[in-house]
C-alpha cells in the first residue's frame, strides 16, 4: 500500500511539475537557520537550587565578562557533562532563567516597625546596627549561664535561627559558628521539615 501511495505522490509531484510554469523557480536550496542565541554568551557552571538531585546547570549570561558589561542571564540549560542529569532539567530547573531574572526580587532592605502597616526603606548600615542591638539586648536579657542544678549551660533560649534549604554548606558553617557562639539552641533548618 505504501508503495502505491508513494507512487501516487510522485505522480502528483510530476503532474505539478508539468504546470510549474506557475511555480517553478530556483529558490535557494538552503535556508540559513536562525542564529543560535547563546553562541557568544558567557557560560557559568552551577547547580540547580531546587531538589536534591543537584543537576548541573549552565547559566548563560549576556556579555563576555568585560568590565563594562553587567552580566544578565539570557538562558539556563542543563550541563551535559553532569553525570546525574546529563544535561536534562525538570520544569523547575528549566525555568531558572525566570528565577534569576524576576521582577519580584527584593532589591532593598526594608523594615516594618511595631504597629506599622507597611514597609519602610532602611539603609543597610542602619539595619545592621539595629539588628545587632536587638540581638545583644535579647541575649543579655535572658542568657542562662547555669541551669537549676548549677551546671554550666550558656544558653540563649530567646533567639531562634531558621535556615533555608538553599543555604550552602559554607554558609551553614558560618551559621553554626555565629549562632552557637551566641548560645542559640533553637537552631533549625528546612532539613527538619
Amino acid at each position: 500500500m505504501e508503495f502505491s501511495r508513494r507512487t501516487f505522490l510522485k505522480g502528483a509531484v510530476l503532474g505539478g511539475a508539468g504546470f510549474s510554469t506557475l511555480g517553478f523557480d530556483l529558490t535557494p536550496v538552503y535556508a540559513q537557520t536562525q542564529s543560535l542565541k547563546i553562541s557568544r554568551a558567557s557560560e557559568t557552571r552551577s547547580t540547580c537550587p531546587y531538589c536534591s538531585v543537584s543537576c548541573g546547570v549552565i547559566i548563560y549570561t549576556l556579555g563576555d565578562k568585560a568590565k563594562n558589561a553587567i552580566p544578565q542571564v539570557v538562558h539556563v540549560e542543563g550541563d551535559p557533562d553532569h553525570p546525574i542529569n546529563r544535561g536534562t532539567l525538570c520544569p523547575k530547573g528549566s525555568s531558572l532563567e525566570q528565577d534569576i531574572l524576576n521582577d519580584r526580587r527584593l532589591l532593598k532592605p526594608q523594615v516594618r516597625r511595631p504597629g506599622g502597616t507597611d514597609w519602610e526603606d532602611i539603609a543597610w548600615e542602619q539595619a545592621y546596627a539595629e539588628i545587632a542591638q536587638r540581638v545583644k539586648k535579647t541575649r543579655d536579657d535572658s542568657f542562662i549561664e547555669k541551669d537549676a542544678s548549677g551546671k554550666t549551660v550558656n544558653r540563649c533560649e530567646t533567639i531562634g535561627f531558621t535556615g533555608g534549604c538553599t543555604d550552602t554548606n559554607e554558609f551553614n558553617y558560618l551559621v553554626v559558628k555565629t549562632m552557637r557562639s551566641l548560645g542559640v539552641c533553637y537552631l533549625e533548618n528546612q532539613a527538619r521539615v
Partner: protein
Amino acid sequence: MTNGWIDIKNTDMMLIMGGNPAENHPCGFKWPIEAKLHRNAKTIVVDPRLTRTAATADLFLQIRAGSDIAFLGGLIHYAVENNRIAHEYLVNYTNAALIIKDKFKLPDDGLYSGFDPERKTYDKSTWNYEEGGDLTGKPVEPTPAKQYEQPAPHPAAKRAVPAVPPPPALPPKTAFDLSLQHPRCVFQLLKKQYERYTPEMVERITGIPKDQFLKAADMFTSVRKDGDMKKVATIIYAVGWTQHSFGTQIIRTAAMLQLLLGNVGRAGGGVNALRGHSNIQGATDMAGVFDILPGYLKVPTPADTDFAAYLKRITPNPAKPDPWDSFNYWSNTPKFAVSFLKAMYGPSATKENDWAFNYLPKADRNYSWVNLWNEMYEGKVKGLFAFGMNGVMIGPDSQKNIDALKKADWLVVCEIYPDETSEFWRAPGISADEMKKINTTVYRLPGAGFAEKDGTFVNSARWLQWKNVALPPPGQARLDQEILATIFLNVRELYRKEGGKFPDPILNASFAYTNPYNPSLTEMAKEINGKALADLTDPKTSVTIKAGQQLPGFSWLKDDGTTLSGNWLYCGSWTEAGALTQRRGTEDPSGLGIYPNWAWSWPMNRRVLYNRASCDLNGKPWDPSRRQVWWDEAKQSWVGNDIPDFKADSPPKDHMGPFIMNPEGVGRLFVPLGAMADGPFPEYYEPIESPIANVLHPNQSNNPVVKKYKTDADKYGTVDQGYNVICTTYRLTEHYHYWTKNNPMNVQLVPEPFVEVPAELADRMGIRGGEKVKVTSARSHYIAKAMVTRRIRPMKIDGKETFQIGIPIHWGFRGIAEDEDKTAKTLTNQLTPTVIDPNAYTPEFKGFLVKIEKV
C-alpha cells in the same frame, strides 16, 4: 541515600513508597527508568494517590496515608515466612544472631518493656544485648545477667567524675546464636514481632486488598528467590515516610527489610532517601539543626560537665560477638570534636580550657522546629532569624506560627522574594487595627539568589558540588554570608565596647578571614575541610603534612589540637590538591555510575555506603557483574571501583562487620538502647488523627511516646467530630515549595491551588471538577478548586469505606497568582497538626483528618 542517584540504574527491583520521585526529583528518576530499560527492572509504587511515579509503575498499590509500617511489616513477615531472605548476609552482616536480654518484651499490647506512662518515655535498659558468648546449638536458657567489665574509657574521659550513675551501655561481648534458633536472638524476636502482620492484617490497616499485597510481596522478595544473591532490590522514599509521628520507624522498617534481603551496601540496593531540597543533606551534615554539631557529633547537654564527660557520653565502644571484629569508627569522635572546636574558636580553644567546650550551649531538651514555634507562641522566644526559610508557610499549623510571630520582638528575614513569613503581620484576616497592635519589628534584607553565590550543595547522594557565581546580586541585594557575618561582627563590636553576658564565645569565635565582613566561601570551605596546625607525620607511611597545609582526609585528624576541621565528614573535600568539590571528571570505568572523579562525596569520596556488604564473607562480590569493591589477596587490601567503606587492610577472615559506624559492626535489625525513642523494632501505630483505632492494639492506638502540644492553638480532630476524610499534602513537579509561585513560567504550568478529590467522593457530595471546596481540619480551613479524579479510589479500612484527598502545598498569600487575587489565600499548612516524630522531630504533615464541603 546509602547509594546514589545513578546507582539506581543497577537495580533489579524498586519499591518506591513515601516518595514521588517522578514528580519531585524528575532528573533523578531517569535512573529508575534506566534500570527499567536496561535491566528489565520492575517498579512497585505504593502511595495514597496514583502519582506520576505510579503512572510508570509495573504495580501500583493505593495505601492509606500513614499505614506504611503495616505494609512493610507485612513484607518482612512474607519474606521470613517464604524464606526469601539472604541467610549468609543476615547471619554475618546484621545483628540477627545477637541475643537480647530476657526482660525485653515485644509490644503485643502496643508497648515495649520499660514504658513509663506518666512521662510517656521508655526505660530502655532491657532493649539491650545479652552479654555472653557463642550460644549456637546450646540449650536455650536465659543466661544469668552478670557484671561485665566497663570498656576502657577514652584517655580524655579519665578525668570525668560522673555525678550520676552511667546510663546503660552495650556489652562489649554479646551473646550470639549463628543458627538463629535462640528464642531471644534478634531474628526470632523479629519473626515473632511481625507474625501479626499477616496479609489480612495488612489489608485491614492499609486498605490494600490482600491479593494485591501478596502480588507486591512476591514481586519484591523475588530477588531472593531460592537464596540467590545476585539480584538486588532498592527502596526509594522521601518525606512521605518522614512526616509522620512514627516516621523514623517507617524508614527503619524499610532498612530492616533491606537487611533481611541483603540489599544494603550493594550497587542497585540500599535505602534511599530522596531529600527534598538542594542542600538539606548538607544542612544536616553541617548541623543546621539543634541536636547535632557538624559531622553528626551529638550536641552537648548539661550533664556533660566538661569536655571529657561529653566525649565519654558520645564516643561508643565496640559491642560485638567476641570472635568478630568491629571497626567502630565513631571511636574517633574525640579527634573530630577537638578539631571542630579548634575551627570554631582557633587559638582560644586550648587543651587547658577544654578546647573552649563551655562556649557551646548545652541543650537539655527538644529545641526542634515545632517547639521553636510553640515557645514563640508562648512568648518565650523573642527574636528570630529566617534566612531563606518561610516558617509561616511550612507550618505545621501555619496560623499558630503567624500568631507566634505576633508575639516576637523582632524578626530578621533574608529572602529574595516577598514571602509570607516577613509579611505575617499582614496575613489575610488581619485588620488594619489588629495590624497596629502587632509590635514585632521585621527587617527584610534582600539576599542573593543561587546564581549570585558560590559554595557547595550536598545532594541526596552525598556529593559536594561547588557552584560558581554567574552574575552579581540585583539592586542593593547582598550575599547572605556578608549579611550574617556583618550582623555577627556588629554584635561582637557591641560586646567588645559594652560588655555583656558571657561575651567570650562571641569575642573569640575565629573570624580570621581576609574580609571578615564578607568572608569568601572558599576560605570557609577550606576551614571546613581542615588543616594541620603543626607538622604531622603518619607513623606508618612517614608521609608528612606541614603546619598550615590542608588535610587530605579525616584519618589525619588529631585530638591534641594540632588539627582543625569545621566538619570532619567533609575533611578531604578541599585538600592541597585543591577543591575536589569542583572536579569535573566524566569517566566511569566500571560502568556502575560511580564517577569517582566528579566532585566529591562524603565520606572520603565513597559513593555507596557500607559497600563491604556487597561482597560475601570471603570478600568476593555477590554479583560478579556488579563489582564495587573486593578483597585483593595479593595486595592484602580491599580495592575496587568505589572507595571501600571499610578498614582497607582488614582481611575477611577477621570477620570485621561492614557497618563500621555501628559499635556492633553489623546492621541493626534490632536497635538497642536509646537510639530510638519508641522501640527497638518498629511497631505499627495510627497517625495522631486517624479514622480507626489501631487494629493490632486498640488500647494503644498512637505512638506511646508522642506528646501533643498543649496551647490553645493545638487542636486535634476525630471522626466523631466529623473529620472523616484522610488528607495528605505534597508537592507538584511544576512547583517548588513556596518559591516558584514567584516564577511566571511555573505559574503558567499550574496556575491555581487545587484539592484532589476521588470521583466517588465528589459524586456523593455533588462536587464537580473546578468547583471550589472547603477543606476543614480541627485547626483551620483551606479553600481551593476541586480536581475530581479517578486516580484516588475509595478504600476499605478495617472494613469501613474511607476516602483520602490530597492537597499540594504551594500557594500562600504572596505570589503571582495570590497578588492577582486568583486564590483564596489560605495555606495548606493551616490544616496540618502540631505533632512530631519522637526521633527526628519531624511534623506529621501526612495523614491527618479533615472534612470537605462545597463552597
